[in-house]
């Protein structure tokens, strides 16, 4: 059955309410963008989960490789001075 042509894969992102970021919620197959939006609406917002939808062709996403995880993210582990809790201030300046 390898002669069958599949509809391309799309990733779906939902904004659950105004003021919040779009967040990845799942995937689906659709022939084009309009159909992907329609189907995302049917599948992922059946209980008012969203007020706005993005669909992105999965093959258009550029992602970091799992094997690069250490090289990319470990260097930040010892930069604790980037966090506010690194600084011990006198009690008199509380809430800074």
């Amino acid at each position, binding site marked *: *059955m390898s002669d069958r042509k599949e*509809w391309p894969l799309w990733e779906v992102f939902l904004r659950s309410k105004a003021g919040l970021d779009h967040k990845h919620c799942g995937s689906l197959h659709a*022939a*084009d963008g309009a*159909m992907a939006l329609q189907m995302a609406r049917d599948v992922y917002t059946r209980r008012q989960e969203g007020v706005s939808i993005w669909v992105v062709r999965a093959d258009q996403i550029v992602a970091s490789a799992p094997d690069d995880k250490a090289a990319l993210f470990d260097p930040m582990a010892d930069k604790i001075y980037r966090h506010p809790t690194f600084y011990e201030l006198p009690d008199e300046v509380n809430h800074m």
Partner: protein
Amino acid sequence: MYTQAMDLPNPDGSPSLASVDSEAREAAFNDRAGRGEIVEARDWMPEAYRKTLVRQISQHAHSEIVGMLPEGNWVTRAPSLKRKTILLAKIQDEGGHGLYLYAAAETLGVSRDELLNALHTGKAKYSSIFNYPTLTWADIGVIGWLVDGAAIMNQVPLCRCSYGPYARAMVRICKEESFHQRQGFDLLLTMAKGTDAQRAMVQDAVNRWWWPVLMMFGPHDKDSQNSELSMKWGIKRITNDELRQQFVDATIPQGELLGVTFPDPELRWNEARGHYDFGPIDWTEFWNVVNGHGPLNRERLAARVAAWDEGAWVREAALAHAAKQAARERAAA
């Protein structure tokens, strides 16, 4: 459960879980999974872990969409508009659950068409429960109460499964599944307050579904192939027998509320164990249904294949339309 055929030997002759070779990488992976760390789609994973997940998630997905068929049988005969809209919403949910799960399986490098082809050619399994007929309206209530109730028992621990995409799909599914069970119980409660004939219909449905529902949890732990490694890998968290006991303990008091009995003379509360005891399961029937000889195996599969074949022209036309639109846009640019 929906993936009870996971307890069968691997049909494609792929390496059995017991013969997994033990490289250092694999040992490290097992450690991580054992500590409850989550594995994501593109992370390295042992081939046996990947294959186990593809089998389990796809069996689960197939069960969701085949599960639409017994309920679809009653859409046109629902007793009121209210019940019809509820039933339609539930069936639509099952289709959505199938989609979430197929998408999770696809993150493991298998295509949707390969998965569906395995279902359509009988290579892949789905839950034995959907090979039983829905003879009366009470069956729709019993499917919600007992079948979906059993599914929830099994699916809640899967929300903590070690494979991230599967766990996230299960979180979404469990949120929606609760409505399925409650609407079923509500339907039965309504019938229980009705006429003698309606009460008899509820009792008859419980009599027919009780044992097949207990079979949904799969073979006894001692007869379950593959269970041990699945537990070690954090794919499975609670054993078949433990889940079955949890289900029986939760369900019997609910049955008392409905005023129904269960077709098991050995069913009784065991004070010492703090659980209900129940009689032996007819495993011959279970294996018959799993191996394709249940009341409706052929009809269910034929319905799925027909739906796929009859939809082929739609899939092709949509692709052709998309290609034409894209060509027009390129020309205009």
